[in-house]
């Protein structure tokens, strides 16, 4: 049965010391009532979770929008900004309408529970200022609305990541339609499979109340699988099905503003602390672990990308450093709460050469036009991170290991790198297949009905003026 669960803690003994400062005196309560849960909320945690949510929003707008936007040509700048802004907005509304419920409730029938949630919380039924959500510590709760909005920001940024693969050549409305369908058919199920569970105070009694990959014990601290691999493969499929840009390989398409890309990368970095350290859901020592790991992996990956460029081209570039930073952030995401800071740093050093190989050699060899390297950075970086998590999480390497939540209070689970690697590989594979196949079907259907691609003339003249009636700059 359940062998290990996603967890943000060391062994429970120590973690309890941390988490329960305020309750040091009180004994732990199994399966607390709703009213009891309210007394288990710490305002420091609430503050942290809300701040983290704001930080993750900042990752999308303006962060991701600028990181991507700076890399396209002037004539398509607004189309990228607009796509990100609108996807974020539409995905946000959808989350409140059905998404949260489909991701974070039990299945419509028990047989569906491993795959997708039901509609019991659709339209936010039953969620208010007085309901609480579980964390990864026994008897530590947060306001459910804080948890709701934190998860919402993840559901908002993920579909926005996809667009980088086929930037500069997609029609706006069909893209929004894709976003809606993809969220429902891919994001919510995958999020459910990886993140849904009953919580540490309840798993002993209801050990099957969990998504499939969660049940298997896949480790994904902050969304390497759900966010990055998921979006990365969808982007790749889109880029292949939509085809290359007009003039690809013949015309120069230099980034119109690396300044914007640098701002975007920086804000991604800053916001990612909300993403990774926020994913611990509380403000504990483990949160600081995730924070430090995020910092170090990013520094290391930025440096190692620059070093490769120095070696290969003799010119380390700003775009390289920014790409490296993002690759590091992606790779450390699933590992952030599990790794020792020193292994997180090594992970950062390693991921950049791998991504560099994909965005240069592999991409040039197979000549696909992944405009902004969503596959090369997010998917490849995400897979690297997901697999590496099996290694760096190992207590033998100073990692936090995994917890056995079928005990109450939970205890450290036995840890085997090789077994965990298999589980991680399974989780990666399922995500690649599910997202890849469903995305392919969606792109195909939308292309046949609404059409995905603007005319060549529109593409030449730019999406900004044709799709949005504006120009980005009038200096």
């Amino acid at each position: 049965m359940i062998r290990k669960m996603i967890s943000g803690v060391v062994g429970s003994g120590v973690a309890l010391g941390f988490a329960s400062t305020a309750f040091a005196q009180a004994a732990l309560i199994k399966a607390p009532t709703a009213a009891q849960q309210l007394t288990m909320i710490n305002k420091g945690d609430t503050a942290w979770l809300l701040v983290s949510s704001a930080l993750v929003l900042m990752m999308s707008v303006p962060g991701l929008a600028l990181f991507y936007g700076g890399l396209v040509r002037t004539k398509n700048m607004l189309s990228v900004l607009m796509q990100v802004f609108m996807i974020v907005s539409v995905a946000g509304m959808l989350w409140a309408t059905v998404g949260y419920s489909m991701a974070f409730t039990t299945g419509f029938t028990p047989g569906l529970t491993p795959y997708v949630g039901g509609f019991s919380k659709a339209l936010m039924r039953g969620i208010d200022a007085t309901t609480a959500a579980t964390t990864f510590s026994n008897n530590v709760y947060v306001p459910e609305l804080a948890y709701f909005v934190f998860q919402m920001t993840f559901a908002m940024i993920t579909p926005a990541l996809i667009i980088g693969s086929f930037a500069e050549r997609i029609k706006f409305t069909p893209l929004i339609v894709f976003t809606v369908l993809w969220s429902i058919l891919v994001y919510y199920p995958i999020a459910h499979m990886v993140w849904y569970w009953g919580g540490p105070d309840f798993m002993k009694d209801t050990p099957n109340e969990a998504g499939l990959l969660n049940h298997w014990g896949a480790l994904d601290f902050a969304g390497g699988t759900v966010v990055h691999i998921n979006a990365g493969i969808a982007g790749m499929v889109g880029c292949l099905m939509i085809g290359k840009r007009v003039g690809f390989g013949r015309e120069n398409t230099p980034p119109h503003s690396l300044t914007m890309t640098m701002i975007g990368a920086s804000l991604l970095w800053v916001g990612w602390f909300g993403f990774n350290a926020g994913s611990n859901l509380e403000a504990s020592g483990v949160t600081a672990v995730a924070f430090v790991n995020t910092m170090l992996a990013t520094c290391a990956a930025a440096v190692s990308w620059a070093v490769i460029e120095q070696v290969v081209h003799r010119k380390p570039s700003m775009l390289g450093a920014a790409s490296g930073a993002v690759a590091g952030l992606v790779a450390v995401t699933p590992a952030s709460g599990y790794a020792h800071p020193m292994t997180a740093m090594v992970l950062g050093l390693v991921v950049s050469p791998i991504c560099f190989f994909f965005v240069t050699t592999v991409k040039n060899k197979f000549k696909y036009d992944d405009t902004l390297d969503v596959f090369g950075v997010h998917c490849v970086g995400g897979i690297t991170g997901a697999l590496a998590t099996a290694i760096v999480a190992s207590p033998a390497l100073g990692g936090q290991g995994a917890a056995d939540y079928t005990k109450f209070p939970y205890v450290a689970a036995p840890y085997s790198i090789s077994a965990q690697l298999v589980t991680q590989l399974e989780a990666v594979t399922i995500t690649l297949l599910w997202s890849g196949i469903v995305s392919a079907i969606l792109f195909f259907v939308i292309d046949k009905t609404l059409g995905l691609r603007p005319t060549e003339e529109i593409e030449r003249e730019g999406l900004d003026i044709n799709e949005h009636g504006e120009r980005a700059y009038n200096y």
Partner: protein
Amino acid sequence: MKFIIAIIKPFKLDEVREALSNLGVAGMTVSEVKGFGRQKGQTEIYRGAEYTTNMLPKVKLEIAASDDLAPRIIEVIQQTANTEAIGDGKIFVVDLVSATRIRTGESGETAL
């Protein structure tokens, strides 16, 4: 010698330049301009305000060439830059009195 001024659509620049290279044109000077002509512009709308400008982005090539080469340059540009759509542009020619290469001080056709 002739001084050729050609106004073309921006995305044709690379193609034209290549074609001219093949012809043996050693140099040219390029600038971004806005063109006003028969071709209609796009409408931009910013909140309530609508702007239709007939000023469209074009690229201007300036090429000094020997009298011999000039006609062929004109022909090549006309053929390469042509998309058969309105707004493809114009080629103007004026007489060049003299040309000097700054680096060497040479003048005349050898300076081109």
